[in-house]
């Protein structure tokens, strides 16, 4: 399997008034056309890892890496124009909450068409047709109607499907999904996940699936990175998860309720300072 993405010693630093905050501290992994999960508690640096790959780190932050390459392209030395051309076309990202991540004053159809027109020379009719096809591909039943709706007029699940359509319409090879279902009702989470699952499989994309839900990640991905305080504390095949060695991973696993099991006393996530070293 040829590496689609190579990350070596990635660091993201935020200079603040009270000193430098290191959000990501030396993360390394490679990714082929496979599904990689990144888990960890809130604030462990999952999103910043994904955003650094996208090139969406806030301007005042510093990103360094020994190597950060996508399909042989060195991302950190790539000119901004090239990185923009990659974004949306070859690497795409799905954000957490469609309520905030869709432009409220632009119709859904327009937002999908915009991605397409940015990256390909397409006529209006052609762009519209492909956007409608994409809406159908995310299992929206009445694409022509949804095309003209505004984000506030659709439900969260529908909005997230629109988001997926917007990001996948140009046919990216790598998709970073940053907690794509965390903001949704439990009932629609599975629907959206299965749509995502199907599209990733059909199109042979590489996927980085960011979540704080270890069980979800393990059922959805091939491989799992466990992050804590900006570092990878364990890398493990999803099938091997129950044999996780690191106490933090075990802690995360134990937080998951198991039906029928005795829940007393409630396990509390243990955090030891030496893990963060």
């Amino acid at each position, binding site marked *: 399997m040829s590496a689609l993405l190579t990350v070596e010693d990635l660091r993201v630093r935020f200079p603040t008034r009270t000193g430098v905050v290191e959000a990501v501290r030396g993360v390394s992994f490679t990714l082929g056309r496979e599904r990689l999960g990144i888990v960890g508690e809130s604030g462990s640096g999952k999103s910043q890892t994904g955003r650094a790959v996208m090139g969406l780190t806030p301007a005042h932050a510093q990103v360094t890496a020994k190597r950060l390459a996508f399909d042989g392209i060195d991302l950190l030395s790539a000119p901004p124009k090239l990185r923009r051309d990659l*974004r949306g076309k070859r690497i795409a990202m799905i954000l957490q909450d469609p309520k905030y991540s869709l*432009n409220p004053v632009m119709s859904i159809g327009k937002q999908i068409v915009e991605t397409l027109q940015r990256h390909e020379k397409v006529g209006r009719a052609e762009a519209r047709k492909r956007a409608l096809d994409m809406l159908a591909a995310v299992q929206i039943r009445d694409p022509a109607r949804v095309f003209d709706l505004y984000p506030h007029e659709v439900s969260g699940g529908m909005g997230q499907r629109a988001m997926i359509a*917007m990001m996948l319409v140009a046919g990216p090879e790598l998709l970073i999904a940053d907690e794509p279902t965390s903001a949704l009702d439990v009932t629609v989470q599975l629907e959206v996940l299965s749509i995502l699952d199907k599209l990733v499989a059909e199109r042979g994309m590489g996927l980085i699936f960011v979540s704080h839900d270890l069980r979800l990640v393990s059922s959805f991905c091939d491989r799992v990175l466990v992050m804590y305080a900006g570092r990878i504390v364990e890398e493990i095949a999803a099938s091997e998860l129950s044999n996780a060695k690191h106490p933090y991973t075990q802690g995360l696993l134990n937080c998951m309720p198991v039906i029928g099991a005795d829940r007393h006393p409630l396990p509390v996530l243990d955090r030891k300072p030496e893990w963060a070293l």
Partner: protein
Amino acid sequence: MSMSDTVRMSGRRRARSRKAIAAVLQFLVVVATTYLGLLAVTFFIGRVIPIDPVLAVLGDRAPQHVVERTREAMGLNLPLYQQFFIYCQQALSGDFGTSVLTTNPVMTDIRRVFPATIELATLGTVIGALIGVPLGVLAAVKRGSIADQIVRVIGLVGYSVPIFWLALLALLVFYARLRWVAYPGRIDIVYEYTFSPITGFYLVDALWQRQWDVFRDVFRHIILPASLLGYFSLAYISRMTRSFMLNELQQEYIVAARAKGLSEARIIWAHALRNAAVPLVTVIALSYAGLLEGSVLTETVFAWPGLGLYITNSLQNADMNAVLGGTIIIGSVFIGINLLSDLLYRTLDPRTRAR
């Protein structure tokens, strides 16, 4: 779509249209009460505060029989609420009485002078918005930079400087010293008799009639007062634009737009500014209203024959009918602008758009 779906949809549509009707009704109530309030306040100013309203209206040199007749016509021997009723009736039919100064009906005078003010305030707002919005965007995008500081200082000075004073200095520099612009007034005496305006907006009229030399002259007259007014609206507009843009640029949909690979220019102008435009419309409308008001002070300095000058001249001659008529007209325009900005807001923001 199934049968039950269709039924539900039409039910929802009916509820929505009922809501829309309620909104329109509420709208009308707001307009009506605001207008009534405006009339009540001007009535209070004109008829209740002065010890003898007739004197206030006619001045103290009017002959006795005129005073008596006016007292009768104004209904001053009637109880106050009836007077107010009559006052409202007259005002609503555009009858603000007669100006002592010009001896014309106030409404006739206002009709003559108002286009000059509208032309000035409109050009001022256009200048203010065309410069202020980009400045505000620049300040927000380059937040904390030198450019941001400069925009901030420009705005602060605009908020702090007396407009009539700046107008005097501008005249001193650009007219008296540099001769870049024409002297105070609206048009050169040479053209005053050859030029016959149709709409009362001289720039438009001159353009329409292809009188290029007139257009040039009118432009040389209007550009300085309009730029000054423009500066004041720029101060306000750029500051608000900056704050709205900062707010929008922090939103998640901006990250999403970047993730799509859009250029910064497109993200700023087509996404962030398009969202900021929703509240900005109100700001621009308010600044337009503010300029109409600011014209009272500017027009005196520039001898601009508009409503502001009319009001101040009447003030100085204790011509109460003219003052109140002018106040009501400006107040009405304020109410109208508020309504318009509300409607625009609704059309710009799909979340409030009644479908």
